[in-house]
């Protein structure tokens, strides 16, 4: 039984055929617009392309009007070589080196099939980085799960971690950081975000564009199968009988070995100058790659779709266009260079096929066995999708939430030394603050030999240039409870925390990426959260002078009408001139002074203490202080350059107490802390005021360092000393052995997921 081909001629001759546009997620007016663009009804292949390229995921139709602010408010900087709009932004880090980095979500696939969902999340973001011409040098994985002890978390978390570990380790990319946050709001909607950073020389930057009449379109990498085409099957379904073709899998399966070959092969063809334009295949597969390459280039492309090598010969042309089979790339190569290109692919055992060529006429024409099944202006597919300015309303419950502040009257606070000690022990062992070694121990941090810092340090630091010691630092952060209380401030607090985490290593923050994880944009309350978060982030980036270079939006993270907390994950990249001068987080020797930089206030709204001890979320998040963050970063960079610091660690979740514990446990060096006069011990130990950092300074550098702070009017207070004994001694209150803290911190995750 053969299915009739819905060619352009056929479509013209049968203008009123019923088309399943609604099943494909298109609205009636969107379908009408396609007809208007084409001057006829679309063929089923065209319908497939438009439906997926105009989906929320590919077109950013609900977010575009807001995301513009990242460009409009971008701070002036010479560092940005490639801005928003490409696969990933590119930042100049000096000496002719450039760095590209981006974070993306793979949330829903990771819920359906945790291992493969997370694995292909890593695979996808890595291909974005190679398609810019960069060698990927590290990955990070900001993750969020439901309650730590929930049954489903036990299913999802180990699978996600194994997937990231299995894929990333096999690719040979060090994992240098990430996040693991538990909150019941993510039950049913875990967040799996993946970040990749790559390095290149300025002259190696490549773009996704198809130029040069007669240049060839080469599809290379894995064969195309029926992965992830879910919805499009309806296009074929009516014409197949009930027990027709196997149901297409909605799950994509990753092959990290093929991706590793793809990386090496791609870098070699780019390095030899064989490629005019290049694009990875991710969401929407060939539809996306061909329409974007054509749209960004001369505008015309002719593709022979029947030349695409298939893993499954029963695939229809619509399905081939949509397939999200992993580990594929598309390159534009001039005819004179094709032989060499193919030779390199063979050397790496990477299949490669010429599937089309750049043409005149400004149309993307796709043929299937001699019949034209697509004939469209590529821009209308790739870039001129619908744009919505969706209604937004501040949720009715927001006021009550903010009014429910964690005052001492509402939430009982520990007062006695025993109570403070017990609170510390409870927080140290809480899933969000406990040691994450059970997870991070499954990730290779050493491969490539350039990892200078990795988890649990505040930032991952990667050496770029072995001769000069030039390197980059990266951190991702987001406290979604803060964003729930105030999405504008919450996004800025995420930015501030990532910025601070980069700064404590001595690196100078330079650029920002983000992954905006939200509920349904069709809910005006969620849309308000989204708009506020984007506005907050754009304003914050402007104030800190760090441009957003790219990112990703993930909507529909909700079950029925309950959305996740707004979770704008922010990644900050910094540059450090000599990685040998990076400042690690851990105390290193006895007799060093411990200083707290910044000001502590009674701020507990959205804090880990309120969450863990009282299961409470309400009030205001801590005050944003971007001026303070900037000042801190400048002082820390100077101090690192002058090698004044033994250690530096930011203060965030769990407050000063948790930060001190982390600094002490890192290298098993004890500390004595004195609670400053005039402040409540509980507030001093556990408040989550921002723009604060703890540092350890050797005696012979104290004078220089304190003068540096005083000179710039940075609040600084000496709060303790490192000890020769392995204990944490909080003056006149309590003492805990480091062994006891370590045991409490280390036991939690293995007990849950062991």
């Amino acid at each position, binding site marked *: 039984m053969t299915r009739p081909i819905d060619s352009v001629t056929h479509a013209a001759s049968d203008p009123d055929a019923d088309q399943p546009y609604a099943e494909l997620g298109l609205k009636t007016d969107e379908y009408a617009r396609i007809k208007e663009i084409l001057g006829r009804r679309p063929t089923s292949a065209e319908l497939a392309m438009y439906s997926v390229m105009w989906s929320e995921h590919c077109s950013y139709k609900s977010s575009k009007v807001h995301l513009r602010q990242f460009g409009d408010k971008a701070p002036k900087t010479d560092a940005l070589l490639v801005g928003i709009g490409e696969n990933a932004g590119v930042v100049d880090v000096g000496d002719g080196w450039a760095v590209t980095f981006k974070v993306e979500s793979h949330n829903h696939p990771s819920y359906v099939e945790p291992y493969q969902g997370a694995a292909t999340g890593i695979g996808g973001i890595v291909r974005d980085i190679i398609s810019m011409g960069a060698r990927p040098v590290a990955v990070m994985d900001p993750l969020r799960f439901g309650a730590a002890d929930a049954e489903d978390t036990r299913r999802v978390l180990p699978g996600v971690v194994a997937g990231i*570990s299995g894929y990333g380790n096999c690719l040979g990319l060090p994992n240098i950081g990430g996040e693991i946050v538990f909150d019941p709001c993510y039950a049913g909607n875990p967040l799996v975000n993946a970040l990749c950073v790559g390095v290149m020389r300025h002259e190696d930057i490549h773009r996704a564009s198809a130029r040069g009449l007669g240049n060839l379109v080469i599809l290379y990498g894995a064969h195309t199968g029926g992965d992830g085409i879910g919805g499009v099957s309806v296009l074929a379904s009516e014409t197949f009988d009930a027990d027709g073709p196997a149901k297409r899998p909605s799950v994509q399966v990753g092959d990290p070995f093929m991706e590793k070959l793809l990386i090496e092969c791609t870098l070699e063809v780019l390095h030899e100058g064989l490629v005019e334009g290049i694009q990875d295949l991710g969401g929407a597969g060939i539809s996306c790659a061909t329409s974007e390459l054509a749209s960004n280039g001369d505008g015309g492309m002719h593709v022979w779709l029947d030349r695409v090598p298939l893993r499954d010969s029963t695939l229809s042309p619509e399905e081939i266009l949509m397939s999200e089979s992993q580990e594929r790339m598309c390159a534009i190569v001039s005819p004179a260079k094709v032989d060499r290109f193919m030779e390199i692919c063979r050397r790496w055992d990477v299949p490669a096929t010429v599937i089309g060529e750049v043409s005149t006429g400004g149309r993307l024409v796709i043929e299937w066995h001699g019949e034209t099944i697509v004939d469209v202006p590529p821009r209308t597919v790739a870039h001129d999708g619908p744009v919505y300015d969706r209604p937004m309303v501040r949720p009715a419950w927001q006021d009550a939430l903010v009014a429910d502040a964690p005052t001492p009257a509402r939430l009982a606070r520990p007062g006695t030394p025993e109570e403070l000690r017990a609170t510390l022990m409870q927080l140290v062992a809480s899933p969000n603050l406990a040691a994450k070694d059970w997870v991070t*121990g*499954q990730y*290779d*941090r*050493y491969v*490539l*030999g350039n*990892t*200078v810092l990795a988890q649990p340090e505040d930032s991952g630091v990667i050496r770029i240039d072995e001769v000069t010691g030039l390197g980059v630092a990266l951190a991702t952060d987001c406290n979604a409870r803060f964003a729930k209380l105030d999405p504008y401030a919450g996004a800025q607090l995420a930015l501030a925390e990532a910025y601070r985490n980069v700064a404590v290593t001595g690196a100078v923050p330079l650029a920002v990426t983000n992954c905006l994880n939200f509920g349904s944009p069709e809910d005006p309350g969620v849309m308000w959260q989204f708009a506020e978060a984007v506005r907050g982030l754009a304003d914050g980036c402007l104030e800190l002078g760090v441009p957003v270079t790219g990112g990703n939006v993930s909507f529909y993270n909700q079950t029925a009408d309950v959305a996740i907390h707004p979770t704008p994950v922010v990644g900050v990249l910094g540059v450090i001139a000599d990685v040998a001068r990076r400042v690690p987080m851990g105390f290193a020797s006895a007799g060093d002074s411990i200083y707290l930089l910044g000001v502590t206030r009674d701020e507990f709204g959205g804090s880990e203490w309120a969450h863990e001890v009282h299961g409470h979320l309400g009030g205001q998040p801590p005050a944003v202080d971007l001026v303070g963050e900037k000042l801190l970063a400048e002082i820390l960079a100077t101090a690192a350059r002058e090698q004044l610091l033994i250690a530096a660690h930011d203060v965030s979740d769990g407050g000063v107490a948790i930060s001190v514990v982390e600094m002490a446990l890192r290298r098993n060096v004890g500390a004595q802390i004195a609670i400053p006069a005039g402040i409540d011990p509980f507030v001093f130990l556990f408040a989550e005021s921002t723009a604060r950092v703890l540092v350890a300074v050797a005696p012979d550098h104290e004078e220089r360092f304190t003068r540096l702070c005083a000179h710039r009017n940075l609040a600084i207070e000496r709060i303790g000393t490192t000890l020769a004994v392995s204990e944490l001694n909080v003056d006149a209150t309590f003492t805990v052995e480091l062994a006891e803290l370590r045991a409490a911190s280390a036991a939690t995750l293995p007990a849950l997921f062991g």
Partner: protein
Amino acid sequence: MTPRVGVITFPGSLDDRDALRAIDYAGADPVALWHGDDSLGAVDAVVLPGGFSYGDYLRCGAIARFSPIMAALIPAAKDGLPVLGICNGFQVLCEAHLLPGALTRNDHRHFVCRDQRLRIESNTTAWTADYQVGEEILVPIKNGEGCYIAEESVLDELERSGRVLARYVGGNPNGSYRDIAGITNEAGNIVGLMPHPEHAIDDLTGPSSDGLGFFTSILHRLVSA
């Protein structure tokens, strides 16, 4: 002339550049070798690096063992060419039966990456002469299938003939029998090691520089030969 030490890149090798760097740090001449070549060229010793050759699909090292270059390496190694297999390289050497036993799934079933203490048990091999017997070193370990197993009689023979080269101390990371981290053949020229000395060549990028000794050992051996 400076001794030349080759590093074979298989499809899926990952720590090949690191092994080349370590050879360079030690003062020898690093030479990149390709799995598809059928000769070793003029090298004086060979390192089989870590990674996931052929994705480690099937079994770790099982497919790489049949590479064209292995057909050249196997007889050369039997003839005394110094060969160091690190992690995946150790797995390849066992699969090629150049070393006894096998490396299987870690007893806890997870990939493990951590800084590991080892005790050097033999310094009579080509790759450990610069260490003291009993010396403890700190190097990274990172593997999913690093559990060394062999029959009791083989283990006894390894112990009796002093061919256990290094043992895990301070906790066995993968369930290896008798805490074995590395072994050698009878002649002492072929060494398999699960941990990664090439990732411990300076304090900046590794937990120590303790691993450099493997590479200086081979350099000194080749220079004095």
